[in-house]
């Protein structure tokens, strides 16, 4: 063998290529890998792999499982880079595994400060990759860069003060040479923001406050000093359109959550999507789904970007099933409202006006006696990743159908780092914790479903019903297989065209994560975190 052949071999397989941003931008061209939280920066959670089909999916079998040393919810979607999988064991341990076998290469164990107080679980939803580095946002609001080869920390910066109620739970988003994150803490009276860090050094490059300060447009939608602790958190990964150089992020609820009295006005940019210039963080446009919210309808859902012919002409759109019960189509170049329609039962609003603003239903507000409102506090959907399949043209939503809460209003008292809620929603179905049995809940009391919508009209095309509700994301593939799960503890495959159940596995604990797919040596795998473990399936050989 000549030296030249040896070099070629090295280039092809032995020396792993760096994950350049160009690779991330074109992640669909290497579907054997899963390079961002939602698969690509367009966030369709759609795999181009086609080995698993509606005909053979019944032959899926477990290849390996990884049991986390954590009793927390396992919400992470792993990344796969050239045969290596990276995931996060709650709260903040990064783990590198061999994606074909589940064997662990290394573990980076991070102990968050005892100041950390994420509202709804000490969880993490995954890492980001760029070059030969991984990036993790922690529950004590630090951003950490790791060496992907050995898990050694390279830099660690404090993004915000955990003692003041700031936390981070989502996977960062890499754009060019920047790592972008936002801060959770909407139940603690924080002032939310999105910030970009130099991937090389950890230096903060820009910051966008999700609540405008004095003198900035939108500041007038708050009164007094309510803007200083109005929440508007960020806790799910955004998306990116490279043609427009815009990054899109969903913003959480205003605080206090269930009592709007201290904050008269629309409370921008709470419960909005913001479009920011990726280089500068400057606001290009925004669209507010739920002005002056009192129902905890965070609009943190993953923005799903689609190029499609819409209402007769090619358009860059954004598909959005909101926690408030409405499905929206927006033009993502301008933020123009194109379509809005309830995808579950809604009683807090009577409809949307021509600009997409909700028309509030009279008397539908939290009060001392309690007001029954649909959808309930966890929403028609929540943070669970939806999916869009360019192959079927359908948009798939993890849905809570016929679900309501009775909203009680209480007096809010602000104190830094303490809960700032101002109310208490009650429901027969458990909340974020998910621990409460929904066992024996009748269908009319609410149920979980995968709902498939036609984005052209918002019409329901099909529904796959569960008994219990679901916190599981959805993955679709180019071969028309849809993967999801729910609190019942099934991980299942549906026919993406019609919702027929094709295969299921009993994973023994609730699926509270988004599934993903990858391949190694021509073998397609589907992986999902459920209960306290991570499972990887492939076709029987």
């Amino acid at each position, binding site marked *: 063998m000549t030296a030249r052949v040896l070099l070629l071999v090295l280039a092809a397989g032995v020396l792993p290529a760096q994950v350049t941003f160009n690779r991330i931008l074109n992640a669909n061209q290497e579907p054997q890998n899963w390079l961002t939280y939602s698969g690509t920066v367009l966030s369709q959670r759609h795999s181009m792999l086609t080995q698993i089909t509606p005909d053979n999916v019944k032959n899926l079998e477990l290849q390996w499982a990884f049991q986390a040393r954590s*009793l927390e919810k396992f919400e992470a979607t792993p990344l796969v880079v050239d045969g290596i999988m990276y995931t996060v064991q709650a709260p903040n341990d990064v783990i590198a595994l061999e994606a074909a076998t589940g064997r662990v290469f290394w573990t980076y164990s991070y102990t968050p400060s005892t100041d950390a107080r*994420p509202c709804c679980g000490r969880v993490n939803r995954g890492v980001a990759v760029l070059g030969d580095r991984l990036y993790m946002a922690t529950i004590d609001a630090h951003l950490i860069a790791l060496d992907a080869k050995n898990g050694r920390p390279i830099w660690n910066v404090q993004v915000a003060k955990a003692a003041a109620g700031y936390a981070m739970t989502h996977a960062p988003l890499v754009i060019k040479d920047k790592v972008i994150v936002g801060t959770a803490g909407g139940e603690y009276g924080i002032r939310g923001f999105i910030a970009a860090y130099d991937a090389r050094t950890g230096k903060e490059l820009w910051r966008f406050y999700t609540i405008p300060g004095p003198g900035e447009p939108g500041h007038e939608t708050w009164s007094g000093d309510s803007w200083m602790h109005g929440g508007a958190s960020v806790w799910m990964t955004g998306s990116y359109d490279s043609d427009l150089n815009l990054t899109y992020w969903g913003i959480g609820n205003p605080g206090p959550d269930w009592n709007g009295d201290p904050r008269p006005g629309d409370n921008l940019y709470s419960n909005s999507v913001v479009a920011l210039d990726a280089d500068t963080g400057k606001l290009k446009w925004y669209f507010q789904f739920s002005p002056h919210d009192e129902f905890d309808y965070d609009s943190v859902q993953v923005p799903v970007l689609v190029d499609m012919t819409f209402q007769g002409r090619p358009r860059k759109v954004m598909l959005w099933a909101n926690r408030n019960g409405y499905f929206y189509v927006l033009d993502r170049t301008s933020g123009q409202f194109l379509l809005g329609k309830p995808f579950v039962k809604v009683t807090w609003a009577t409809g949307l006006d021509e600009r997409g603003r909700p028309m509030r239903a009279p008397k539908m507000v939290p009060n001392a006696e309690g007001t029954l409102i649909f959808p309930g506090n966890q929403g028609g959907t929540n943070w669970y990743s939806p999916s869009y399949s360019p192959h079927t043209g359908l948009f798939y939503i993890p849905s809570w159908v016929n679900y309501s809460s009775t909203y009680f209003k209480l007096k809010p*008292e602000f104190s830094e780092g303490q809960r700032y809620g101002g109310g208490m929603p009650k429901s*027969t179905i458990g909340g974020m914790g998910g621990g409460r049995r929904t066992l024996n809940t009748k269908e009319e009391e609410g149920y979980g479903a995968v709902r498939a919508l036609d984005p052209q009209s918002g019409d329901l095309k099909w529904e796959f019903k569960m*008994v219990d509700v679901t916190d599981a994301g959805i993955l679709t593939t180019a071969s028309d297989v849809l993967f999801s799960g729910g609190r019942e503890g099934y991980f299942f495959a549906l026919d993406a065209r019609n919702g027929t159940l094709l295969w299921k596995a009993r994973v023994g604990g609730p699926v509270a994560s988004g599934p993903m797919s990858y391949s190694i040596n021509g073998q397609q795998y589907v992986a999902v975190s459920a209960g306290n473990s991570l499972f990887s399936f492939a076709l029987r050989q």
Partner: protein
Amino acid sequence: MSDLRFCILLLAASPLLAQQHYSAADIENGSRLYRANCFICHGPDGNYVTGVDLGHNKFRRASTDADLIHIILTGIPGTAMPPHKFSEYQAATVVAYLRSMAASAQSTAGSGDPTRGKALFDGKGGCTGCHRILGNGSRLGPDLSEIGSLRRAADLEISILDPNEEILPENRFVRVVTKDGAELTGRLLNEDMLSVQILDAKERLLSFSRSDLREFSFVDRSPMPSYRGKLSSQEVSDLVSYLISLKGVDKP
């Protein structure tokens, strides 16, 4: 120094002695902290986390007030329970509130005679045909071994006189008809999109695939008969007094 602080000092020496001495203000303060910090995970009534029922003194890892204060302050590593930046006093007010929830769930024993109540339960009332207490009786209806810790006297009286007034979701009965025509009624234990688990009238644990069932429906009315007109008001009081006295098995 408030009474409560004094209690905390006592806790170290004799935790049991210190319980129950909470003032209304302590409970009110604890209630505020609970609503602000605890209810998203634990729920308004303290029962959202599996195996934990804060409103009924049911904890996984604690029994004394000192245990509870420790857990509130330090959290439980590896679980969703975080440490809290409370003062020890604040943590104690949360415990005061939890204990008050449990106490109000119990209430007073009423005016009846529990001994006569037990005789009614085991005899004329025919209660053991469906209910079980500390190992005696049927498993079909709710086990009442610790009902005195879980329900108030007024609720129990309503359940005896008007069983349909409130049927807790965990006590719902279902009727299933299998494809081969067998009809069964039982207590629903679990269900999902593909299967149903019940305890039938013969106390069998049965699991059905939904695809093997021709019918599945909830039984809307309680299988329990009303005792209105069948028991005198004194007998109802006796029965309630007996039930209220049932606090489960003493923990070692």
